[in-house]
């Protein structure tokens, strides 16, 4: 990079300020509890502290934001997470490697397959096992189905955040079908537990591919419907264009990954940058936009759904090899070498990584999750600054957080 100090000085000041300001805001909030000094005049700036969540319809779970507003304009945002903390990382340490997989389902609970995948990939890297090609293809299919379903949930809920109730139902109608496919494959709809270290628990059932192909052929027209409802809609555009603009450089500085990063013009997708499984032989594009606002993030996600359809189609065409190996040669008791490894995949939300430290026993000594939602969420105060309360709702939606993953 020629520009090794990416942020301009003003941007940098704004960005570094935020954390200090948050602290100052917290202190000021404690001190400036209502004291009747004099009745405020009409033209005084009257700051108000608003407790946004944890029980709030559009915080997507139990996120709490303490915001200071002047009228409706946001001066400070102080995210408070942890309401859903379940100590997953601690749980990993107490259990053998395969027993950790069901726990990963509960991190990003709208995208369980990608969590399973990242976890299994990490252990496989530690074991240096190769997984059969059939398993690779099915894993990619499951991943992309999961990406579709996660983006559909995002589309529906962020539509509702901005008052458009109908896309939610359409999106969930399609998601329901995707969950049916999951159910047929692995028996569960949400907490899938659908991958195993070294491969997969099952082969696909008869007719699954054909039915999935039918669905995949149908999907683009459904996506057209959502776009017809929202993409050109002037109200939708007014609510999203220019809201929460963040540059690519700043995204990198904040560690923001996934569609948010790509909407800011950085064409970086782990499926392409560090291909895992068989992504390197698949033909797909990485949708990017340049403005980095909420509208662009919407467009990027919708386009990603279309790309997922393409990937699915290719995988399904390649799949009907004779049914064969779907699980690599993994010992029954998994005891990796005492080493450490980090592996990550492109989850629907961004870079989902697992950092595993083994001490040679059958349990991980330390298993750390690098959750994209958590890291992305820390840019929220930066995004929200100066916007209105209504925009805050749009911004929480646009980062696409899942609190199960933020709090772990």
């Amino acid at each position, binding site marked *: 990079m020629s520009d090794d100090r990416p942020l301009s000085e003003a941007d940098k000041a704004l960005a570094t300020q935020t954390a200090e300001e948050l602290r100052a805001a917290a202190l000021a909030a404690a001190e400036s509890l209502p004291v009747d000094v004099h009745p405020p005049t009409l033209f005084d700036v009257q700051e*108000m502290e*608003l407790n946004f969540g944890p029980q*709030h*319809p*559009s915080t997507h779970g139990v996120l709490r934001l303490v915001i200071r507003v002047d009228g*409706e304009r946001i001066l400070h945002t102080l995210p408070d997470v942890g309401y859903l903390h379940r100590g997953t990382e601690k749980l990993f340490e107490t259990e053998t490697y395969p027993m950790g997989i069901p726990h990963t389902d509960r991190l990003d609970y709208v995208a369980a397959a990608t969590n399973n995948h990242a976890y299994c990939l990490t252990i496989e890297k530690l074991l240096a096992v190769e997984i059969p090609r059939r398993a690779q293809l099915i894993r990619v299919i499951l991943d992309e189905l999961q990406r579709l379903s996660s983006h559909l949930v995002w589309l529906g809920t962020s*539509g*509702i*955040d*901005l*008052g*458009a*109730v*109908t896309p*939610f*139902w*359409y999106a969930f*109608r399609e998601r329901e079908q995707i969950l049916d496919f999951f159910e047929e494959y692995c028996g569960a709809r949400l907490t899938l537990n659908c991958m195993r270290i070294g491969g997969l628990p099952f082969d696909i059932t008869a007719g699954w591919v054909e039915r999935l192909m039918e669905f995949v052929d149908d999907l683009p027209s459904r996506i*057209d419907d959502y*776009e*017809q*409802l*929202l*993409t*050109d*809609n002037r*109200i*939708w555009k*007014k*609510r999203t264009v220019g809201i929460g603009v963040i540059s690519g450089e700043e995204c990198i500085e904040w560690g923001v990954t996934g569609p948010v990063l790509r909407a800011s013009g950085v*064409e970086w997708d782990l499926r*392409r940058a560090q291909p895992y499984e068989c992504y390197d032989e698949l*033909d*797909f*594009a*990485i*949708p990017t936009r340049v403005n980095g606002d909420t509208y662009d993030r919407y*467009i990027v996600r919708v*386009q990603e759904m*279309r*790309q997922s359809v393409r990937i699915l189609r290719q995988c399904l065409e390649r799949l009907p090899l004779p049914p064969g190996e779907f699980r690599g040669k993994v010992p029954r008791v998994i005891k990796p070498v005492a080493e450490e490894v980090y592996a990550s995949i492109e989850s629907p939300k961004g870079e989902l990584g697992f950092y595993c430290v083994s001490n040679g026993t059958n349990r991980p000594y330390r298993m750390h999750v690098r959750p994209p939602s958590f890291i992305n969420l820390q840019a929220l105060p930066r995004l929200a600054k100066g916007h*209105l*309360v*209504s*925009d805050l*709702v749009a911004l929480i939606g646009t980062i696409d957080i899942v609190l199960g993953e933020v709090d772990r």
Partner: protein
Amino acid sequence: MKVLTPTVLTYLKVVILVAVVPAVVGFVIVLAERRLMGFMQARLGPNRVGPKGLLQGVADLLKLVTKEDITPARAEKAVHFLAPVLAVVPALTALAVIPFGPAVRIGRIRTPLWVADINVGLLFLLAITSIGVYGIILGGWASNNKYSLIGGLRSAAQLVSYEVPMGLALVSVLIMTRSLSMVEIVLRQERLGLWFVFPGLLAFFLYFVSGVAETNRNPFDLPEAESELVSGFNTEYSGVKFAFFFLGEYAAMIVISCVAVTVFFGGWLPPFPNVPALDFLGVVPPFGWFLIKTGFFIFCYIWFRSTFPRYRFDQLMALGWKWMIPLALANIVIVALAVLLTPGRSDGMFVLSYIFGGLFVLMFLLAKLRRKLARRERLAAVPASAPEAT
């Protein structure tokens, strides 16, 4: 039958209006809204209570009435109690001047289907509906809740702003009718053989959009904005008081629809009342026509709600002050010029009808063109293939 003097009849009508409208709201509109929204969202909507869900309104009402009525600590108790009443009463009062139909004869009694035909009907309507905003503002303020307060404030600004284009839109109708009496407005349309929606297309559009804003309905439902303000001004209301707010909102919706029908769509008149070829439309009684038209507007409310996202507060204000009010003023000038510059008393209205009708047709043609363009754009937006490694 000396008992049923006109005075008694009027009281009777008032009772019917006050008793019937809530019933209609409960049974028909709530159900229609939920079922229709369900249909538009590819689901069925409530269909469990009673046959086809017809008693859903009763169930909702029973639930609301039996719920605990909570007043928050440190709320302004009196105002908190008064606010829902203030939201309902003006909306119901406004119905008094709506002519639902011409005089009807029941047995030997002949009576018009309106409570009062006052000569400042339209003015009365504007005045009385604007009182309804106090209910929302006071409710939001008295709840001792910041979300409610923001909701109330938004509501105040919104209703004050949209009152103006609404009134201005109706002024252009006044120019055409030269009367404020609601009955006279309908009769004038009958004499003219022309619904005012044709010469007043722009006025109707402005009126209806302002009306949607006035009733806090999507896409202008900012005061309650469920996903932002957690229901806004009525967050702290439950039970009967909440039911009153609910009723007030729906009654206001009915009033706006009724006024739109009366002023722009010829009230109880069938379409094109002067065209003899359309006489068969007379099978539907006048009151039936009124109901059909009002129903259509309420359907539009529901349709909008299920389709559009919500405006942001500042955008709403900008829309009101920068677009609606100038347009409404311009519309007044256009209508006034048309009326002044044409020889006959009603020629101007026909000229305007042709102009607006032509524009309307043009819009439909443009719609086709636009759809084609949109499809092309969407296809172009999909990256066709993986870019070569850069």
